[in-house]
């Protein structure tokens, strides 16, 4: 097996991984950086983010307001020290991107424009039309080409971390093009592998979002934190889950039920605001968890619109006019016309909530460090946690910049601490074990299970039992079922025995990652007996700050369900309070 020696290995080359790589290259041009990703950087799912990135820049805004919106939006499960760090770094990072050429939309005077998003008291979302994530990703990727020390390993799938003498010292990865396993020896590893929304059938997430980075750390003994908190975005296209950005509502789009009623007023987000005059933190500018939950209630009441793709509500943007839609929401218009055959300039668009983002992830602290020395994580795969129980729209793009850079700086500190590397033989032994594991998986042909079959059962289980509202009995069912699927995974058969671009093998590995992550979601959800943010229980309807102002930590077990532990939330200045999204009252 080829050994590639590097100083710092990064797994994942989306927004967080690229930001980390650039920070490393800038900090010390002599550092050897291996940027490893299962796809080419510009294919990473950061490209699909639409609305924008939050950072305080305007004179009417303040750090205190961004802090309050984030912590309240997260239903007080955010670690407040991390939020403080995040909001202070946010404007610097967004300005840095501007200096790297990001085509942010502008005010007439040439300054960077901001737009409102849900749950914000002041508008503070920097945006590049409705392709913000795309532009951020490409700006970072293109900027990364400046630095010769960033050595990319495109289309390499990370299989296992190498952990020896108590610290992380590299990883093994499969070169997809050749099918050969490579051993990366590194003095520190940063995981930036994205979320795992693909464990659900109806999601905005691209095919790559299979939780591989999370599972990589999890299997090495690093806990996954708060995995039960899964965000439904309120506005997805009903036929395929394509995202229509929150910017649609930020720019003034409104939601109607089948009777033409602005139903959000019936769920604590009213009173109704006049069409064309959106009020911040009110009605359509409520937070994602609340807006998605309102849909669920409307559906139960029979107030939704029946469509060939299931029950929907209507997102009406017609009053914005063609000029504004084309300037601010050109992608949304294109997506609606192309994929649904409906033009938002001319008619309301049927939408329904769709799985979008995982607040949980690899347990990291404010320095983006995991409990495993030498291992760091950033972006959606990590849980710092600034997002708590419900992420505020437009905080995630900023998060991957702030903590991507932070992970890089922490990795450098770790490298400079002078821990000596373990002997080649020990690391190679582990790498060979990983190679054997993959080899065994590939050879399987007598199996009785199919990848597509197990994946379908997993998705159905998650959709049916781990949705917007949950119950103890459904969650128990889901736990049993996912546990069963993990057992059955041992009996899958691979049909493709060749080595070059074996996507049968890739899908088998991705399914393994998703099942591991899904179990952390279901077990965490079953045992969190309260309702908070995106985790709503019909059998425990109240938030329990006495017993559960805590993060869930799930520890991996190869054959059993995870062991859970709990960790207190860090509170620095804001005690849990009431989430008020009825600003229009005041």
């Amino acid at each position, binding site marked *: 097996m080829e050994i590639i020696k590097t100083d710092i290995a990064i797994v994942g080359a989306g927004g967080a991984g690229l930001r980390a790589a650039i920070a490393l290259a800038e900090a010390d041009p002599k550092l050897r950086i291996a940027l490893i990703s299962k796809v080419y950087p510009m294919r990473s799912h950061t*490209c*699909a983010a639409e609305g924008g990135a939050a950072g305080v820049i305007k004179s009417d805004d303040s750090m205190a307001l961004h802090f309050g919106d984030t912590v309240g939006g997260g239903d007080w499960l955010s670690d407040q020290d991390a939020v403080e760090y995040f909001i202070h770094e946010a404007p610097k990072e967004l300005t840095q991107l501007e200096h*790297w050429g990001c*085509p942010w939309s502008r*005010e007439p005077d040439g300054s960077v424009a901001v737009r409102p998003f849900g749950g914000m008291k002041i508008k503070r979302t920097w945006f590049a039309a409705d*392709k913000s994530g795309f532009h951020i990703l490409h700006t970072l990727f293109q900027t990364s080409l400046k630095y010769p020390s960033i050595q990319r390993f495109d289309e390499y799938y990370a299989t296992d971390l190498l952990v020896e003498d108590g610290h992380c010292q590299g990883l093994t990865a499969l070169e997809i093009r050749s099918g050969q396993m490579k051993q990366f020896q590194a003095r520190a590893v940063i995981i930036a592998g994205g979320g795992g929304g693909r464990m659900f059938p109806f999601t905005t997430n691209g*095919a790559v979002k299979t939780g591989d980075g999370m599972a990589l750390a999890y299997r090495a003994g690093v806990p996954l934190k708060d995995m039960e908190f899964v965000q439904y975005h309120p506005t997805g296209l009903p036929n395929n889950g*394509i995202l229509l950005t929150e910017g649609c509502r930020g720019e003034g789009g409104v939601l109607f039920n089948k009777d033409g009623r602005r139903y959000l007023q019936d769920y604590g987000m009213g009173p109704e605001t006049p069409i064309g005059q959106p009020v911040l933190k009110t009605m359509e500018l409520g937070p994602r968890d609340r807006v998605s939950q309102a849909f669920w209630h409307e559906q139960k009441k029979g107030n939704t619109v029946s469509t060939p793709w299931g029950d929907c509500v209507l997102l009406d943007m017609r009053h914005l006019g063609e000029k504004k839609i084309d300037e601010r929401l050109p992608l949304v218009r294109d997506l609606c016309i192309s994929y649904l055959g409906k033009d938002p300039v001319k008619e309301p668009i049927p939408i329904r909530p769709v799985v979008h983002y995982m607040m949980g992830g690899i347990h990291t602290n404010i320095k983006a460090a995991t409990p495993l020395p030498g291992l760091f994580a950033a972006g959606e795969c990590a849980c710092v946690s600034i997002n708590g129980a419900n992420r505020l729209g437009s905080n995630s793009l900023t998060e991957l910049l702030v903590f991507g850079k932070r992970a890089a700086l922490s990795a450098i500190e770790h490298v400079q601490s002078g821990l000596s590397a373990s002997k080649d033989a020990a690391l190679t032994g582990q790498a060979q074990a990983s190679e054997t594991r993959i080899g065994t998986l590939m050879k399987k042909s007598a199996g009785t299970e199919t990848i597509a079959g197990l994946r379908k059962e997993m998705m159905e289980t998650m959709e049916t039992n781990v949705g917007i509202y949950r119950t103890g009995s459904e969650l128990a069912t889901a736990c049993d079922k996912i546990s069963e699927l993990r057992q059955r995974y041992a009996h899958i058969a691979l049909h493709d025995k060749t080595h070059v671009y*074996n996507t049968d093998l890739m899908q088998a590995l991705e399914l393994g990652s998703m099942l591991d992550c899904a179990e952390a979601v279901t077990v965490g959800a079953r045992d969190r007996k309260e309702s908070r943010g995106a985790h709503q229980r019909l059998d425990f309807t109240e938030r329990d700050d006495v017993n559960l102002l805590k993060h869930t930590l799930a520890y991996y077990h190869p054959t059993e369900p995870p062991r859970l532990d709990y960790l207190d939330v860090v509170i620095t200045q804001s005690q849990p309070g009431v989430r008020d999204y009825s600003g229009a009252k005041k």
Partner: protein
Amino acid sequence: MSERQIQLEVLRYNPETDSEPRYQTYSVPCMNEWVVLDALNYVKDNLDPTLSYRWSCHMAVCGSCGMMINGEPKLACKAFIHEYTDQVRVEPMANFPIERDLVTSVEDFIAKLACVKPYLIPKSDQPVSAGAFQQSPAELKKFKQYTLCINCMLCYAACPQYGLVPEFLGPAAISMAHRYNQDSRDGGRDQRQEVIASDEGVWECSFVGACSEVCPKHVDPAGALQQVKVASTLDWYKEHLMPWMKK
């Protein structure tokens, strides 16, 4: 949502088992609103797990799933089944080496993109602490269109010149250079000009315009190349006929 059966004819090639490419036909029950990518996913999940192709976002923004569909370069996620007859032929992108099945090698494009210095080379040094650069909406509009390239490489698959002269930098890379050249914050045109005004650069373009026709994001690389040609010609005049204009 009506359903119909299509015959999906897919080019297959596995370097480990095939001496040359072959076609394999799958009978796929399609919903009318499907895209070709959905049909490929149906094959992968239900008929043949050995079929390989790239895809991710399913919304025409990640640029992974470029391929030839009935001979035209298309994103499989934006090629609607209802626009085709019941016979659909799918092949890997033209002008790129096949790795396997519908997967082609991207390396040549990535190298070309990198060599045009596709990043901001600031006109003036300004620390981040001094805040963002000013840029008017009109200045942004000058280059915005060229930022929309998703690197799907369909323009290379359509470009007759790239097929003939593989050294040609090609539409997307030159458009990206033009994008930064047109950015009011950038001062790097002279550095990029060495590459894009070279023999392998813009002068290879025979202005057929196929690149702009197939671009799924309406970037109009042909327009960018034309503008680069005009600007490069002016450079030549300045240098050779008006030496006093030289910087």
